[in-house]
C-alpha cells in the first residue's frame, strides 16, 4: 500500500515538472518573457531601489528555468499585466466559484446519471433503456451554450423562476471568507444570512444543470455499460439463485464492482467540467476561473493566461492523484504490492 502511494506521488511529481517545462516554454513566446514575475508596484519612483535588487538570469535558459521554478514553487505566479495584481491570490478569489459550480454540476450528474444508468442496465434492450440511451446521447452532443440559452429563455425569462445570471442577488453583500458562497453566506453572521444562502442556491441551479448535462450523459452511459457487464457475471446469478433481493444485489454486489471503472470515468469528467465552465461561466456571468481566463485572453494578459493554465493543470493532476488513491481503497486488485 505504501509503495503504491509513493508510486502515485512519484508520478505526480514527474507530471508536475513536465507541466512546468511546458508552461516555461510558453513564457518564452511572451513579449516580455518571464518579466511578469516582478511585482510592478515595487517598480515605482518611490522605491527606485526595489527593482534593482532582483536579478534575473538573462541568457541562460537553464538558469532562467530554475529561477522560474523557484518563483512558481514559492507561490509567485507573477502579476497581471493589466491590473498589476498577484495572480496566485487572484486565482483563489475566482477558483472557489468554479469549484462550487463544478461540484454542484457533478452532484447533479451523479444524482441523476447513476440511477439512470442503473435503471437502463436493469431494463436492458427494453424501451426504457433505449429512451435513456437516446436521451443521454442528445444531452451529450448538445452544444452547451445553446442548451444554456434554451434553459434561460424558458426558466428565467418566460417562467421567471430562476435568475438570469451571476452568483447571488446583488442586494446581498457577502464578505469573502472561504470563497464558497454557500458557506460564506451562512457564516457571514448578517441578519439576512439565510436569505442570502437561498439566493446563492437559487442562482446555482441553472448553471449547474447546464454544466452537469454532459457529465450526466457520460456517467449514465458508462454506468449502464459497466453495470450490464457486472450483472452478467456468475456471482450475480448465484446471488439471485440464493434468493437475495434484487435491490440488495443491485446496490450491494453489483454497484461496488461497477464503481471502479466509473471512478476513472469521473476523473475524466473533472477536466470536462473545467473546460465546460469556460462557456457556462461566460453565459451566466459566473465570476469563476473560466470567465477570468477568457477575459484574460481577450485582454492579451499573458501572465494571467499562463498562471491560470498552470494552476488548473496542477489542480487536475492533483485530482487524478486523489482519485487514484481512492481507487486503491476500493479496488483490491489495483493494489499490486
Amino acid at each position: 500500500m505504501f509503495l503504491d502511494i509513493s508510486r502515485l506521488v512519484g508520478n505526480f511529481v514527474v507530471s508536475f515538472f513536465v507541466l512546468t517545462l511546458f508552461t516555461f516554454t510558453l513564457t518564452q513566446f511572451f513579449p516580455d518573457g518571464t518579466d511578469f514575475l516582478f511585482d510592478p508596484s515595487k517598480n515605482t519612483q518611490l522605491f527606485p531601489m526595489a527593482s534593482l535588487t532582483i536579478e534575473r538570469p538573462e541568457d541562460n535558459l537553464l538558469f532562467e528555468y530554475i529561477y522560474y521554478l523557484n518563483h512558481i514553487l514559492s507561490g509567485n505566479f507573477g502579476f497581471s499585466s493589466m491590473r498589476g495584481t498577484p495572480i496566485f491570490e487572484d486565482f483563489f478569489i475566482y477558483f472557489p466559484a468554479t469549484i462550487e459550480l463544478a461540484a454542484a454540476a457533478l452532484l447533479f450528474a451523479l444524482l441523476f446519471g447513476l440511477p439512470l444508468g442503473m435503471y437502463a442496465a436493469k431494463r436492458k434492450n427494453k424501451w426504457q433503456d433505449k429512451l435513456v440511451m437516446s436521451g443521454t446521447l442528445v444531452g451529450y452532443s448538445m452544444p452547451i451554450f445553446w442548451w444554456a440559452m434554451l434553459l434561460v429563455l424558458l426558466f428565467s425569462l418566460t417562467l421567471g423562476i430562476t435568475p438570469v445570471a451571476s452568483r447571488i442577488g446583488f442586494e446581498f453583500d457577502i464578505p469573502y471568507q472561504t470563497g464558497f458562497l454557500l458557506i460564506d453566506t451562512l457564516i457571514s453572521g448578517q441578519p439576512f444570512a439565510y436569505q442570502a444562502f437561498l439566493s446563492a442556491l437559487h442562482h446555482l441551479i441553472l448553471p449547474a444543470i447546464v454544466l452537469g448535462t454532459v457529465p450526466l450523459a457520460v456517467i449514465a452511459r458508462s454506468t449502464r455499460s459497466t453495470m450490464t457487464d457486472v450483472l452478467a457475471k456468475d456471482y450475480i446469478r448465484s446471488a439471485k439463485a440464493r434468493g437475495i433481493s434484487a435491490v440488495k444485489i443491485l446496490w450491494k454486489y453489483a454497484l461496488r464492482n461497477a464503481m471502479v471503472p466509473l471512478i476513472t470515468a469521473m476523473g475524466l469528467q473533472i477536466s470536462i467540467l473545467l473546460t465546460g465552465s469556460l462557456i457556462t461561466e461566460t453565459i451566466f456571468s459566473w465570476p469563476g476561473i473560466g470567465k477570468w481566463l477568457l477575459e484574460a485572453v481577450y485582454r492579451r494578459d499573458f501572465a494571467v493566461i499562463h498562471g491560470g493554465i498552470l494552476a488548473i493543470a496542477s489542480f487536475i493532476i492533483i485530482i487524478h492523484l486523489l482519485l487514484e488513491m481512492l481507487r486503491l481503497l476500493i479496488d483490491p486488485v489495483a493494489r499490486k504490492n
Partner: protein
Amino acid sequence: MAKPQKSTEQVNTLNHFVKGALSNHQFFYILTTFLSLQLSGCSKTDNSTIRDNVLVYCSEASPQSFNPQLVTSGPTFDASSRQIYNRLIEFEIGKNNLEPSLATRWEVSDDGKSYTFHLRKGVTFHSTQGFEPSRAFNADDVLFSFQRQWKSNHPYHRVSPLSFRYFESMGLDRHIKNIIKVDDYTVKFELNSPQAPFLATLAMDFASILSEEYAQNLTELGKPEQIDNMPVGTGPFQLVRYQPDAFIRYKPHPSYWKGKEQLEGLVFAITPDPSLRFARLIAGECDIMAKPLPIQIEAAYNYPQLAKYSEPGSNVSYLAMNTRKKPFDNLNVRLAINHAIDKKAILKIVYDNNAEEAVNPIPPNVWSYDDSAKPLSHSYSKAKQLLIEAGYPDGFSMELWAMPVQRTYNPNAIKMAELIQQDLEKIGVKARIVSYEFGTFLEKVKDGEHHAALLGWVGDNGDPDNYMSSLLSCSASRSGNNGAYWCDAQFDSYIQKASTLSDIKERSKLYVKAQRRFNEQYPWVAIAHAKQFVLANKRVKNLKLTATDGMYFSGVYLQKQPAQIELLGSSSEDP
C-alpha cells in the same frame, strides 16, 4: 412549479428512492418531482425589504482604474469620479451650467490669467477599512490632485503605469504656470495665457479631488498604488468591494456634505453582453441598463415595467486614419476613403436611424457648429479615381481597428467595421478587422499602432474646445488622444487662439474656420452623432441623463412597491 402541499409526498418518494425501490413506473415520476422540488424550493425568497433600497445598474464594462485622472473612458468615470469624487466646480446634473461644489465661489482676474477659488469648509473624505481621515478637505488636497498630474517629479506622478492623458490632452501641463495655496481654504491657479474654457475644464472628471492625507498614509505604508485602486473621495458614494468583470459595490457616504443618499446600496453589475443586460433588466435583477441596442429600445415597449430615457447626445463617432502611417499621410487617400464609405447605410444598420450623419468633428448641439458644411457624396468611382491620383491604382491592405464594446457613440463598432470593409473592398482596399479588449484597444491606439481605428468621443463640458483640442490638436497627438495623429499648424493656430479669447462670438468664428480646415484635410471620416438611451425599471425615480453621457446616481431613489411586478404580466397586449 410544485405546490407546497406536495412536499410530504415528495419526501415519501424520496424515502422510497433511498431504500432502493427502483421500480419502473415510479422512476420518471421521482425524476420530475425531484427536479421541481429543486426549482421551487428556493424560487421566491422574501428579500424584498433588502432589495428595495439597493439600486443595481447593469454597466457595460469594467473600469480601467478607480482614478478618473488616469483614463478617458466613460465606464471608468461612471464608476469613479461620478460616484466617489467631487470637483471644485461641477455641472448641474442633467443640465449644462456650472455650479459650485468643493469651491463655494471663485474670482477671475481681469487679465483672465488667474483664478482664485474659495473652498468649502467641513467636507469630509470617506472612512474606509484602510483609512480614517483626521482632517476635513482643504487646499492641500487640491494641490495634491493637480500637482500629481502636472509635475513629473511629483512622488505620485509615476505610481500608475497609466498616464495623465486627459490633463495633457487638455493642454493643462502647458497652460498652468503655478498653483498657490493662499491659505487653508483658498487656492489660486495662475495660467500662462487666458484660457476661456478653464472653468468648464475644472468641472471635468479628471479634475476630481483626491485626498492628500490618504496619499501620505499610503506612502508610509509603502503601498502608493492603492490610491488608484482603493479610492477615497468626498463624493456621495464610497467603494465597498470590487470584483473585476463581476460587480462594483458602493455604500452611501454617511457624512456627505450635501446630505446622505437615500439609497442603502449601489451595485454596478458589470455585464458587457447587451442581450444579457437586457435579460437582467426584464427579470428585475437590474434596475437600470446602460447602452441598450436599438432593437431593445423597440422591444422595451412590450414590458410595462420599463421606462425609456433618451437625450440627444453630445458625441461623435469617427474613423481616425493614422496620418503618420502610409498611405494615410496622403490627402487623396483620406478623401477617397471618405467618398467610399456609405454613411447612410451605417446610420440605418448600426444605429437603426437613431443618429445623425456627422460632417464636422463636433455635434450640432455644441455651439460654433459649422452649418455650411455639406456631407461628401458617396461614390466608389470618385474614390477609385482619387486612389489612382494618389498612386494606389490597385488599392492597398490595411488594418481596420474596431472596439469590441458598445459605446454611446457607437452601438456596434464591429458591425460598422464590417460595413466599411465591404465599402473599401469595392475600391480595392483590403481591410482586416482587428479588435482588442477595450482597455487594451485604447492603450494600443494611444501608442499609435493602428492604421485606421473606429473611435468616438462624448463631449464632457459642452465646449467645442473639448472636441477639437482633445481630439485633433498637436498636443493631443503627442498625448495619444488624437487617433489620427494629425498635427496641422493652421488648424492648431485657430483652436489655440480661440481658447485664449473670452468673447464667445470671436471664439465661434475661429472654431468655424477650424472646422472648415478639418473639412479640407479629412483626418477622419466623421460618421455619426448618436442619440443616447438608457432603459430603467419604473421604480427608479429622479434619474437624470446628461448630454455628456454620464451616469450620476446621487439623488436617485427607488419607489417601494407593494408587490413584485409579474414578469409574465399582460405584456403582449401592450402596444
